[in-house]
């Protein structure tokens, strides 16, 4: 079995007295795409934040490419190749689109990925000189995604990447994620509500309920509303 690029074991975390993650374990190998689906408030975002180091795990461990990063700050995890695109479009509002991308690029050495990324996200090309705050919500979401990916992370955590994005661009994102996982062996952990997108890119799908993984679904079953209803929403 391929060594795990990201491995979390028995993660418990929450906010103050409220415990949200109830002993969650997940592992990703290079090139694997794992999706986490489920209702709101079940802990999906909390899981990603804990993996990224923005939330301290109360117990359990996180390993990145074999190294124990459980007590490491987010910046350290980022330098080790962890990328995170949170919900809420956190791009730099006062910097232009190009500057946002350049900051993502600056995180690593090597040739610029920006031209290639702009090929993928054609709609951003027309907006290069615009400050982040002048973009529409969906454009900001694309920028956040692009900025993360130009840093060539080894594993990315995506929190609802398709939210607020028009259908034709969601298609492009699906293609992009598929390509990156196959050609660049990028490992992807994605939280999503768009089940069609998930069925197109994911290798494994976990259902999360009340802070734990309760079942796994085969990606192709996601497009079958009867199965989805049965397994997910009952």
């Amino acid at each position: 079995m391929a060594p795990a690029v990201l491995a979390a074991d028995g993660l418990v975390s929450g906010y103050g007295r409220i415990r949200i993650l109830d002993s969650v374990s997940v592992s990703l190998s290079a090139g694997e795409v794992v999706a986490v689906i489920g209702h709101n408030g079940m802990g999906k975002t909390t899981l990603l934040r804990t993996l990224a180091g923005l939330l301290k795990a109360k117990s359990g461990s996180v390993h990145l490419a074999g190294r124990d990063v459980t007590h490491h700050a987010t910046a350290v995890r980022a330098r080790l190749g962890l990328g995170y695109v949170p919900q809420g479009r956190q791009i730099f509002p006062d910097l232009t689109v190009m500057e946002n991308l350049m900051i993502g690029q600056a995180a690593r050495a090597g040739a610029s990925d920006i031209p290639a990324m702009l090929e993928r996200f054609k709609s951003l090309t027309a907006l290069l000189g615009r400050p982040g705050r002048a973009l529409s919500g969906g454009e900001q979401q694309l920028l956040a995604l692009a900025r993360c990916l130009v840093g060539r992370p080894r594993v990315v955590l995506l929190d609802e990447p398709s939210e607020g994005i028009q259908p034709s661009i969601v298609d492009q994102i699906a293609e992009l994620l598929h390509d990156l996982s196959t050609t660049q062996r990028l490992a992807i952990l994605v939280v999503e509500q768009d089940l069609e997108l998930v069925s197109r890119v994911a290798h494994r799908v976990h259902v999360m309920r009340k802070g734990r993984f309760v079942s796994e679904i085969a990606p192709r079953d996601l497009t079958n509303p009867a199965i989805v209803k049965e397994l997910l929403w009952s």
Partner: protein
Amino acid sequence: MSHSAPSGAFQNRAASTVPAGKTLLETRGLSKNFGGVTAVTGVNFRLGRGELRCLIGPNGAGKSTFFKMLSGQLPPTAGTILFDGSDITGEPPHRIARLGIGIKNQVPSLWDGLSVYEHFFIAAQRRLGARRAAAVADELVMKLGLATLARRDVGALAHGERQWVEIGMTMAQDAKLILLDEPTAGMATDEVERTVALLRAINVSTSLIIVEHDMQFISMIAGIVTVFHQGRILIEDTMENVLANPLVREVYLGAGRPGR
């Protein structure tokens, strides 16, 4: 069909399908420029009383900017907005809210530090006074399925849960028109269904304009769909016709995916 800007005739045809006497909201030549950027140009829009209209379009087409002008958050650069017979162009947000327009912005904007219950209470209190507002707040908590979270600080809520709170706040306002900018963002399929039922119930007494990208949601709920593109109305028609329109497929839908 050519890919240049749509002709004006195309736009005006749909705007006049609503009989004039039953118009709740109308915009004439509404435009907004930000420095060099034109977000909305010459939009002639009409909404009938009691209607539920969906607004779709590519990212950056001007939908949210349009909404912000309707709610008074942004002053238009040109054009007029008529609501329920009066000209509300350029009025401040609090006055427009009192005239009966409620809005849920794209990104849920709540008051971190206050509870779910307090949000509904404050939304209802100005109009109803404290005691009735408390009753309304309790009712909304139940209706939106937020009973277990009622006293929780909204800062601790998940993204989709915050959407519910925002929607609930617009319900507490008892507005004549509610503008919802992506109400189902972050919701799972059955939660979307619940929202559809909720919005249908609201629609009985309140007109709605809803911006959405979820085609399944729109097909469940929409009557007429207005499509924005590059700051203008591209087409206004039933869902079926809009989905079949080749320009809409090209600039917005892509390879014919039906949605979630």
